[in-house]
């Protein structure tokens, strides 16, 4: 690569930001992600309040739901609208970087872990005559998957 090209790349890199810009625009993603996330979270809060699924105090439950869901809503909207090439530190070929190999290895091993844990859990529930509610079991499976992937990724990364 010509040194001038590298200098141009570095200049372009300087124009990148932590949160990036919208696809096809110079607008920061924060101008869209924050208000849309708040709207979505308020909508979820209103839905929870109207349906009364949060318990005996529906308004408090709705506010709690809105507060808890605003962060994942922000992450989801941001991921949908961001142009990754405008992110500080984003590489041109992530699929060829070592982190991609770590991700694949961790995902494969975590899948085996989830099968094992969920299988054993199912056996315990079946033979123990237990009847846990689905609202507890399904989030539990999600937590097991997230923890398994996180631990596996850390182990793979530590080994290099």
């Amino acid at each position: 690569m010509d040194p001038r090209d590298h200098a141009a790349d570095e200049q372009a890199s300087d124009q990148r930001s932590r949160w990036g810009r919208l696809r096809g625009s110079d607008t920061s993603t924060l101008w869209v992600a924050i208000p849309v996330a708040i709207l979505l979270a308020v909508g979820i809060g209103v839905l929870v309040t109207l349906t009364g699924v949060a318990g005996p105090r529906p308004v408090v439950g709705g506010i709690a739901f809105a507060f808890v869901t605003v962060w994942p809503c922000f992450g989801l909207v941001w991921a949908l609208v961001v142009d990754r090439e405008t992110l500080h530190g984003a590489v041109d070929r992530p699929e060829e970087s070592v982190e991609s190999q770590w991700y694949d290895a961790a995902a494969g091993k975590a899948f085996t872990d989830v099968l094992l844990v969920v299988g054993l859990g199912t056996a315990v529930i079946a033979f123990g005559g237990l009847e846990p509610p689905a609202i507890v079991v399904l989030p539990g499976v999600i937590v097991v998957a997230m923890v398994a992937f996180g631990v596996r990724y850390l182990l793979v990364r530590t080994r290099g």
Partner: protein
Amino acid sequence: MRNVLPELRRERGWSQQRLADELGVSRQTIISIERGRFDPSLPLAFRLARTFDRAIEDIFDDA
């Protein structure tokens, strides 16, 4: 896989970050390749070879 990437990089006076930028990969990728802990994909190996004007087998040694 053993390789002479650190020597080639130092000959040019490049940092690991500079080489990573040239190849479009993360700095951690360069670190892992230089330590022999990560075998690059064939396209990445070709780009490395072209970057240093060497043949792939001149850079990597699988013995």
